[in-house]
């Protein structure tokens, strides 16, 4: 697409949408948001970029192939589930470490496996959607 307005606007938009997608990812679990919606938004950011600059350029920006991103995401999600093994809990039990407190209300923030799982979902969705759209774009 050879529109100067779109290409110029895309630069701004891509960064904004992408930051918003990360915000949605981190906001998840306690508030609306999470890996799936974040991954979709992240994919939208890259799709805008590929509409403006072409899929080859986007593949370069991604560095890894979208399929690999999706599979790595699957691995991360699996690891998040397996982590509870070391804590003696069943598969996928969320492990929480509260910083500065002992629950959601009292602590400043938390480190947990749920976020790791969400990051995995984020990457699976991002990679999956992008490999689909690239397939369409590159065929056309």
């Amino acid at each position, binding site marked *: 697409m050879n529109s100067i307005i779109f290409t110029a606007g895309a630069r701004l938009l891509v960064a904004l949408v992408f930051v918003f997608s990360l915000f949605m990812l981190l906001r998840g679990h306690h508030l609306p948001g999470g890996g799936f919606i974040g991954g979709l938004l992240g994919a939208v950011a890259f799709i805008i970029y590929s509409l403006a600059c072409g899929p080859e350029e986007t593949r370069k920006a991604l560095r890894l192939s979208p*399929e*690999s991103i999706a599979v790595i995401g*699957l691995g991360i999600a*699996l690891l998040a*589930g397996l982590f509870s093994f070391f804590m003696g809990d*069943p*598969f996928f039990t969320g492990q929480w470490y509260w910083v500065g407190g002992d629950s959601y209300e009292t602590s400043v923030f938390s480190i947990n496996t749920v976020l790791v799982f969400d990051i995995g979902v984020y990457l699976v969705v991002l990679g999956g959607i992008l490999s689909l759209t690239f397939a369409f774009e590159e065929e056309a």
Partner: protein
Amino acid sequence: MSWVLVMPIAVPFATAVVAYLARNFPAGRWISVAGSALSLIVSALLMIAVLDQGVIAAQMSNWSAPFGITLVADYLSAVMVVITAITGLATAIYALGEIPESTERLGFHALFQTLIAGVTGAFLTGDLFNLYVWFEVMLIASFSLLVIGGGKERLDAGIKYVALNLVSTLVFLSGIGLLYGVTGTLNMADLRGAVAAAENQGLITVIAMMFMVGFGVKAAVFPLFFWLPASYHTPYFAISAVFAGLLTKVGVYALMRMFTLVFVGDVGFTHEILLWVSLLTMFTGVIGAAAQMDFRKILSFHIISQIGYMTLGLALYTPLALMGGVFYLVHHIIVKANLFFVAGLAKQYTGDTDLTRIGGLYKSAPLLAALFIIPAFSLAGFPPLSGFWAKYLIVKAAIELDYWFVAFVSLLVGLLTIYSMTKIWGYAFWKPHPEGYDPTPDRAPARVTTAMITPIAALAAMTIVIGFYPEPFVQFAQTAANQLLDPSDYVTTVLGVQP
């Protein structure tokens, strides 16, 4: 305890991830083999735990049943998981020889491992919606495996396969929705009580029929089998074998589970339908096979015919019949996967699977001929091979109920199976090659043929072991059948297990 149940699913998934990342290196295929071997080990551990305790269950994420997802294994689930791992390992080894490097680069091994994970998950889950998810995992992986490697024929088969399976999944999903609306739960153990207590039993029967149609398409029973012969003869032989061995059996397993655990309110109605469906499945399958002249198409139709025996075991609904059904399920996976493996190797030697265009294998590859005879005669039910015991149990159960017609059809279908098997034997093995040329094993490199003949020999050996030493397997099937008919252990283990 819960980890014993998780590992058979987690190991193939982890293998898929690693194998995909290593897909451009020769190490990728060895990772697949190693992962399959590890799967077999963890499945064996699951089997040991089940033999020790009867039924085991685990609540994922510590959400107690019936709210969370429960993984549960009784005898039937455990044996299906083990047999899946065995088939997976055999196929991973066979794929070393058959699958070209260009296909491996597309992520063949990762897709294959995902398929195995999906099948294992379907056998282990105790939650209906989770079962739907595993069906989807299987469908996505199997569709990709059907079309991988390209070609018009494969795409054609793939589209038929995916369209008809999507319909079945939708019917299944609608059934789940309705069932949830009526009972308010989707945990299978919890459903047993909830369905029995439901006010509108008529509606429950309607839902049961939706499940029967949904699973029936998956299991390829009459008259819903048409997608199977349209698609199973096109992909790589390793893929055909794993599809033939495992995918339809997931449908049979789901039927067995749902129609012994949940939908038992109107056995006279539902199981009567299943009985006629089974007989027609057996008969149309074997007649369809008689008309075919392609190695794999004959075998595909025979899958359908044999599925009839398994559902027949369920339909007769006596301890002996169910025991025969379970035994049949296990025996058939080994035998059928093996026959497809043999077809693949026969193609390597002769260059085709059309029976009119090949021949002379008996002379040039006597070992392959011997290895074909074992699963082929087992399939037809020759004593003392494993298929004989499977058919014997089913026929005996039918006679005990004075269902003479059922017994007659079972025996007749066995006879017609021999017709097809001797046809393959005559055309592919005995007859000289039509172009007068001698199919020699040298056409394929030794690396290829060794990788392909190893799993064939191993599975044939298992068929012989089950045939000559059936006692422990029959006893196992008996316990499995008793657990199916009296699932009180299953229910208390799932609902009573403390997280």
